């Protein structure tokens, strides 16, 4: 399968660079000279923020402490808190460029595997949802898609290539099978029911647009028409998932494109889609992109035109592609997007700070959709460096109360389930007992499934609102993971702290706070530890267990701030 010329060429360039990367350990950015561009771009965007704050008579919060900043960076880039060693090494660094250096390090080969693992989870949830029990699960191979995403993120595949591959993928969905292509799993579960889900997800994820309301009627708020939904839908009608059986059992799904004869059955050279309007009348639709560009060839024959490939070409050359992902990534790091909700962009819902948004978009496209470039630009900027504590002069900058975000402080937000699980493991070494990596995967899957029951990824929900429930809180307080975390068996984090005989009691307490919260204990916290020490008649292990339990169940641990 050959894709359109433009992105293909770019990917070959990048692939060539990657072989260099493997030898030198340099980032792609350095190869292209991106590194030189970033400080200028960051300074330029920071200046625009300063101006915006001044205009809004808002004074930004103070800088976050090094500990806070380091903690959020690990959480957002790698999906976990830093280990005690990683944190201490950062805090001990005196260099003026220490923050830039840490960003470079986390994006380098040293952390490539973890980086790819984290971002493949983020995209896995976005592309097929968290719900592993949904009705269409038999059509999807989660591990297959995960494998594809991991490879893509460790190669820092340009985003337009990633998008194109996911939209046009053909092949077998299951790892190990002939013609395996994990990317097909984005669509294999979305093609029943006339590919309505494929239409909805593709437009939400890659265009940042909601077309689904117009499936049944014209959009009440913007100019979307019902016909536009079905015109977009018509691009997916050649896609066909085939079930492959082995010994009577469903083994895998093979996604291919085949001739679409049209719903009227008149002629495959005029392959149309019909939809029912509200007044009950049937209307016909042919492929037309969201910007009005129509596919001139109405043929449903693959030999004439491959509709998914035509759609992918339109998507990767449209401005929506970069806008949607820049907005989504900005929200990933800053808690709010320029446009909220992230998948409802358009003239009816304009971005806040449009000039800044445009600068980022322009730079991202200029740098050939390099995701690491975009991430680096965002995390090195001033908004990401600010404290999450509001003060008198920026108290009104609070999107929770409905005001448009100005990013004059870092909006504290709860970790997602995956970040929480990974962070609990970092802070407790609770997984060290599990030797085999497949068992570790099972343990993770099991915990996440129980923690996220009834809790699917939902783009509508601003991530700053705490969604915890009683069952989740009970699971954290009393569940098996917390029992392991507070155990003193050999190898646990607590055991390591308790058995280091060169530490005094308060140094031990400080180590707990640093490991989990990236700060030392406050005076009242030390007083409570002292009181516990008396309660436990000097048994320090008991004090450590109580304090550790309290720290790991606190909002300060559960939030990115």
């Amino acid at each position, binding site marked *: 399968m050959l894709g359109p010329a433009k992105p293909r060429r770019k990917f070959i360039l990048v692939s060539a660079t990657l072989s260099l990367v493997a030898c030198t350990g340099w980032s792609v950015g350095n190869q292209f000279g991106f590194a030189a561009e970033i400080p200028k771009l960051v300074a330029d965007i920071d200046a625009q923020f300063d101006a915006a704050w001044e205009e809004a008579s808002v004074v930004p919060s103070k800088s976050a402490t090094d500990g806070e900043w380091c903690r959020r960076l690990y959480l957002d880039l790698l999906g976990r808190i830093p280990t005690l060693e990683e944190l201490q090494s950062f805090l001990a660094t005196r260099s003026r460029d220490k923050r830039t250096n840490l960003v470079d390090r986390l994006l380098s080969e040293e952390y490539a595997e973890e980086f790819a693992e984290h971002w493949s989870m983020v995209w896995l949830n976005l592309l097929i949802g968290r719900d592993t029990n949904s009705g269409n699960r038999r059509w999807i191979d989660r591990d297959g898609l995960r494998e594809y995403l991991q490879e893509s993120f460790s190669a820092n595949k340009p985003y337009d290539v990633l998008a194109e591959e996911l939209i046009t993928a053909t092949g077998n969905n299951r790892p190990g099978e002939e013609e395996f292509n994990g990317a097909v799993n984005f669509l294999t579960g979305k093609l029943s029911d006339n590919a309505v889900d494929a239409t909805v997800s593709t437009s939400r994820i890659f265009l940042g647009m909601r077309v689904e*309301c117009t499936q049944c009627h014209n959009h009440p708020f913007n100019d979307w028409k019902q016909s536009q939904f079905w015109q977009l839908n018509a691009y997916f009608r050649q896609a066909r998932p085939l079930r492959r059986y082995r010994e009577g059992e469903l083994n895998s799904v093979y996604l291919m494109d085949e001739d679409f004869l049209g719903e009227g059955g008149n002629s495959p050279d005029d392959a149309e889609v019909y939809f029912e309007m509200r007044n009950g009348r049937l209307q016909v639709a042919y492929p037309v992109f969201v910007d009005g560009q129509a596919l001139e060839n109405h043929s449903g024959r693959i030999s004439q035109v491959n509709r998914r490939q035509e759609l992918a070409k339109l998507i990767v050359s449209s401005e929506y592609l970069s806008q949607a992902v820049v907005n989504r990534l900005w929200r990933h790091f800053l808690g709010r997007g320029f446009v909220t909700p992230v998948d409802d962009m358009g003239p009816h819902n304009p971005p806040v700070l449009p000039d800044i948004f445009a600068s980022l978009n322009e730079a991202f496209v200029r740098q050939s959709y390099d995701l690491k470039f975009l991430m680096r630009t965002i995390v090195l900027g001033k908004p990401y460096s600010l404290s*999450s504590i509001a003060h008198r002069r920026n108290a009104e900058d609070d999107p929770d109360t409905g005001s448009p975000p100005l990013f004059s402080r870092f909006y504290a937000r*709860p970790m997602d389930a995956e970040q929480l699980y990974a962070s609990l493991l970092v802070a407790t070494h609770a997984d060290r007992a599990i030797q085999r990596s497949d068992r570790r995967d099972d343990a993770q899957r099991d915990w996440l499934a129980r923690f996220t*029951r009834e809790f699917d990824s939902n783009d509508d929900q601003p991530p700053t609102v705490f969604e915890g429930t009683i069952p989740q809180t009970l699971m954290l307080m009393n569940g098996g993971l917390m029992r392991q975390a507070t155990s003193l068996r050999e190898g646990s984090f607590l055991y390591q702290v308790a058995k280091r005989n060169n530490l005094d009691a308060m140094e031990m307490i400080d180590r707990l706070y640093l490991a989990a919260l990236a700060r030392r204990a406050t005076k009242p916290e030390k007083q409570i530890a002292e009181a516990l020490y008396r309660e436990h008649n000097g048994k320090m292990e008991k004090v450590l267990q109580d304090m550790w339990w*309290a720290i790991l169940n606190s*909002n300060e641990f559960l939030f990115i701030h």
Partner: protein
Amino acid sequence: MTNFINWGGSRRHFLSHLAGAATWAASSSHFVSALRASAPRLQNEEKSAILLWMGGGPSTIDMWDLKPDAPTGGPFRPISTTGDIQICEHLPRLAQQMHRLSVIRSLSTREADHQRGLYYMKTGFVPNPSVQHPSYGAVVSHELAPTRENLAIPPFVSVGGGSVGAGFLGMSHAPFVVQSNGRVRNLQANADRESLARRMAALELIETQFARQNRGRGPLEHGQVLSKTWEFMTSQQMAAFRLDSESPAVRERYGNTGFGNGCLLARRLVEAGVPFVEVNFSGWDTHANNFTALENKLPEMDQAMSALVEDLAQRGRWEQTAVLWLGEFGRTPRINGNAGRDHWATAWSAVAGGAGIQGGTTVGSTNKDGTAVDSESYGAEDLMASILHALEVPLTTVHKSLSGRPMKIANGGQPIPGLFS
């Protein structure tokens, strides 16, 4: 040190040892509610609903709307009941309760797929990729929880299985899932009561310190959930989950089965003030050997459901408690080659009673062989509106989806006239 009965006691004990207690003891406003002695209160005057959910699509034509004269009517015979209505011979105990229950025989819906049918019947809306609609329990929880200030148990409990969630009404109205034996996951702390109280005190300090630093709504809301969880763990209302406190005779009467325990648990939860309880009873997808399967399942259902209705009435809660028996659709009048019946949404039945819903009658009717409704037909919206009406929830209520779209409660359905006099 003696036993610490409640958090209040152990906290004070702990505080007395604290040199710096004064610096933070006053700060914990959102924990105060957790400290309130929460005496269990019977809320007889307040309304609740119980949904008996028959997962898989029950064959209502063999239970509530028999067609003995049709060639596809099947082998079961109708029997008379205490109401003006006949039901299946395999439901003899329920026959004695039918003066309290009514059968809606004129449901006609369009969703005959399990997933879609479940979603539609439980929310009143057809599935839509852009909105997650709240289910019955979440809607009732949202409307009635504010009237149950002292309720420590989550307002929407789902017994013996999952449910459709709270959708745009938010996680605090999500179903709290328990097993039918009343077991609550992760309720047992890893520490004794005394240590737990100490740990809570340390947690309270970290929690309030952070929440008071002006970091927005999220950290504060976490404290509220923590406080609710603590209240739940330590509340005397937790006794409602302990089925073993019922006499063997009572448990026997409900049948000591999964569904029997679920019904008994529902009664106890409703008496504790829980506004919505769902009891799941699955295995109704009888594509093969429909009649043998029903002969096995109906006695379990008959015993549990009749005991529930009778108990609620005898214990004075019938007038406050709406009971709805429902599945995702009915089954074909046609009997297939495997002596089974397939999915049929065009004409089927549900059963309702309590909380002012009329008993002993039928609403609507189907044709000779049960393939179609021959009276005015109703859907999930009307059924939901009827239950909400019985609970005195105003049907003019409009919720807002997360994207700001107005959503009429029960999707704008209206109470089914025949259910109310």
